[in-house]
């Protein structure tokens, strides 16, 4: 059933944690041109992940040109003078590598995973496309249609995704988290070659990037290679900075999506909450898990087991965003049940926490879960590098990860109640219903 939930989770990244006796042992270096490099040596398997993270994503866009960062990510595979269109992927493939890229609100990242001795190929290819991208007009037009197909696939024809998009658009009115990472359809269509070249030249530079390497490598050798391939790339003179503040919400916001293709109602909601670095993120993480993390959470026990009103339900919170995000909840409404009833039950559970507090054993359970997740996450080079990359691109130090579990352990039941009463208020909520047309 987890798979069913994934479509809901696109907006908030996976939980992470840190601390205990296990830690991420990274070494870092900053080149003269501003490029930061972080290496974690792990010799347990002879593989490596190489990731380049750029501080650009939909957060750095403007109305009318939304989706430009993601479209640029696609163009990054369309070739340079030295490695024409398709060459990059062929080289990676015939060397047994996996490659891809992903764009988020706060960052864009490119990666290759392969045998550790292939690392230098990553350096050669990524240093080349950091500055030498060729923008062929025909390729650009074709890629635009590919991205529009991607939007049809992931959003237009997926009613639950449409709902999540609507809720974010309503929750944020003055902040770029308002629009989706993939962009609005009309915006994607109207982006020009000049727009995208400009976006590339503005944000793709060594002083706006972080390289993360995790695997069977020696840090000093990695630093030498990065120096060799990226050292002579000039930094950008000016990287624009943005600053937004979503004004406090003064009343509940409600949206609905009516869909002919929806078969069952779905509820998705979010409360504005602080993000990483606020000091409140640990208590919020625990609050979200008590409310809706797993089958023994309050929402699941009430909505699925006791009332049998939902197919599944949950709540989650990711603190790892540049600006404050949402603590979200969702419920897939069971056939024959009204979404109003499910919403009422959700509120009863929230009020239950506010009135009666939380059980220390419940808090202990959630802490155990977060610690276990941290241990499981350490098993993958890719996932560790990803956590480092996210922190660095949202303006945090990756070492934050290593005290995360300890900080989670320090949270008291009172801390949880405090953040719950501060943020789980109706006037701070945006809630959306997906309604099958004709229901």
């Amino acid at each position, binding site marked *: 059933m987890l798979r069913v939930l994934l479509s809901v989770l696109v907006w908030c990244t996976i939980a992470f944690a840190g601390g205990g006796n296990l830690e991420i042992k990274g070494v870092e270096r900053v080149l003269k041109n501003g490029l930061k490099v972080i290496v974690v040596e792990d010799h347990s398997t*002879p593989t490596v992940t190489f990731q380049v993270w750029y501080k650009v994503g939909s957060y750095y866009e403007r109305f009318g040109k939304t989706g430009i960062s993601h479209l640029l990510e696609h163009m990054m595979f369309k070739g340079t003078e030295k490695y024409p269109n398709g060459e990059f992927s062929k080289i990676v*493939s015939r060397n*047994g590598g996996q490659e891809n890229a992903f764009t988020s609100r706060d960052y864009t990242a490119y990666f290759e995973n392969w045998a550790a001795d292939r690392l230098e190929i990553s350096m050669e290819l990524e240093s080349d496309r950091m500055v030498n991208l060729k923008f062929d007009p025909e390729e650009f037009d*074709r890629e635009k249609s590919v991205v529009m197909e991607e939007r049809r696939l992931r959003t237009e024809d997926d009613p639950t995704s449409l709902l999540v998009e609507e809720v974010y658009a309503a929750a944020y009115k003055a902040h770029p988290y308002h629009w989706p990472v993939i962009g609005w359809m009309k915006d994607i269509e109207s982006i020009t070659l000049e727009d995208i070249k400009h976006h590339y030249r503005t944000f793709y530079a060594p002083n706006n990037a972080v390289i993360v390497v995790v695997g069977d490598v020696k840090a000093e050798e990695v630093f030498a290679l990065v120096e060799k391939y990226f050292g002579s790339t000039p930094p950008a003179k000016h990287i624009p900075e943005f600053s937004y503040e979503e004004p406090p919400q003064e009343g509940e916001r409600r949206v609905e999506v009516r869909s002919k293709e929806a078969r069952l109602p779905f509820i998705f909601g979010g409360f504005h909450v602080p993000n990483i670095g606020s000091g409140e993120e640990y208590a919020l993480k625990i609050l979200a898990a008590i409310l809706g993390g797993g089958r023994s959470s309050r929402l699941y*026990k009430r909505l699925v087991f006791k009332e049998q009103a939902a197919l599944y339900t949950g709540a989650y919170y990711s603190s790892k965003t540049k600006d404050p995000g949402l603590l979200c909840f969702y419920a897939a409404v069971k056939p024959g049940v009204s979404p109003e009833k499910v919403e009422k039950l959700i509120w009863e559970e929230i009020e239950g926490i506010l009135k009666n507090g939380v059980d220390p054993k419940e808090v202990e359970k959630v802490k155990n879960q977060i610690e276990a997740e941290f241990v499981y996450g350490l098993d993958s080079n890719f996932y560790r590098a990803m956590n480092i990359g996210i922190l660095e691109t949202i303006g945090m130090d990756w070492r934050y990860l290593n005290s995360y579990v300890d900080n989670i352990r320090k949270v008291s039941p009172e801390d949880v109640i405090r953040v719950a009463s501060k943020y789980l208020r109706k006037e701070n909520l945006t809630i959306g219903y997906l309604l099958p047309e004709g229901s």
Partner: protein
Amino acid sequence: MAQVSLAKITPYVFKLSNGLEVWVVERRVLPFAVFKLVVPAGSVFDPDKKAGLAYLTANMIGEGAKGLSAEEISERFEFMGADFDSSCGKDYATFSLRVTTRFLEDGLKLFAKVLLEPTFPPQEFVRVKNEVVGEIMKDHEDPGYVASEKFAEVIYGNHPYHRPSKGYVETVKAVSRDEVVEFYKSHYLPEGSKLIVVGDVDADEIKKKLEELFGGWLGKAPEYPKFEYPSVKAQKVEVAKEVTQANIVIGHIGVSRSNPDFIKLYVANQVLGGGGLVSRLFERIREKGGYSYAVYSVFVPSLYKGPFKITLQTKNERAEDAIKEVLDEVEKFVKEGPTQKELEDAKRYLTGSFPLRIDTNTEIADYLAFVAFHNLGRDYLNRFPDMIKAVTLEEVKEVIKKYIHPHKFAIVVVKKKGN
């Protein structure tokens, strides 16, 4: 390229006194382990009118065990930070546990109890049944799911692969609790099941523990029955749905995993439409045509002959053009075969990326569950690269002609009416 060492992944295989086969990989890097039980109880055993019986049974595991309610089971697993998961496909069902070393002892005990002493509480049965019905309704919101379900119905005739493993709303509703209990009693048995263990364990110690916990479970699972396949014929089916994008599935019945040509087809398919960002179909449909975000082809590895299928999506208006291009590309591929260079590149990709697909405890357990079920041998992970390397151009040309027949393709299109 450098030979990436896989020697670390040779499982220790033994049988418990009750015949349960156990595969253990000691991987003591991090303090956790993954357990995965494979039970030969997939939806191929479902009667047509009770399609969904096997899936419901698998979903009832963890919903009540001797002395423990469904809620208590979840509470206990989650207090340990452990993940318990069940799944049921067409061939087999799996149950997995991921648990930290700190809670391994208790977690494993609970895992065994949940699997071997299920109580199928009537009120939970009603709830789970309604949930499955809701899940099926929700699946039908996804045009990709609708296309792939219809494709299976079209190509498989009366073979049980024509049904989705979850069944249909009406057939799931028709299943009784007694039938689920009976299905559990007759199919969830140690001889024929396989248990995979990967992570922070000592093989000898875990053997003792498993004997204690699973040794009293007795019986032999039934053999898989034989089924007839319908004859392959060209056909085109359209399903109307209010979508902005046509979802297209093209293909026919392929081969079973046990077919000696499977690996050759696997390599051949990598050139045509396999994983990664390099393939003939990816190049033609996405890179040259800008038709689709995703396009791929696959021989689904299965106990019976699995489907060979090509999947893509494009806006409603371009559906017919995209289908023509796919057919043209496949015909050309079957006629001429790949070039020597394409073949070598595909082999290098498959052998090189293989270690990346088995580099966490969970991935190793998943892969070994598949290997154990299909009896591919305990050294399979070590032999795999050599099997790939041994495939020749002549062999590839021969098998694609033998197993891919574009003129007999079934084509299923889910799109907006009128386009």
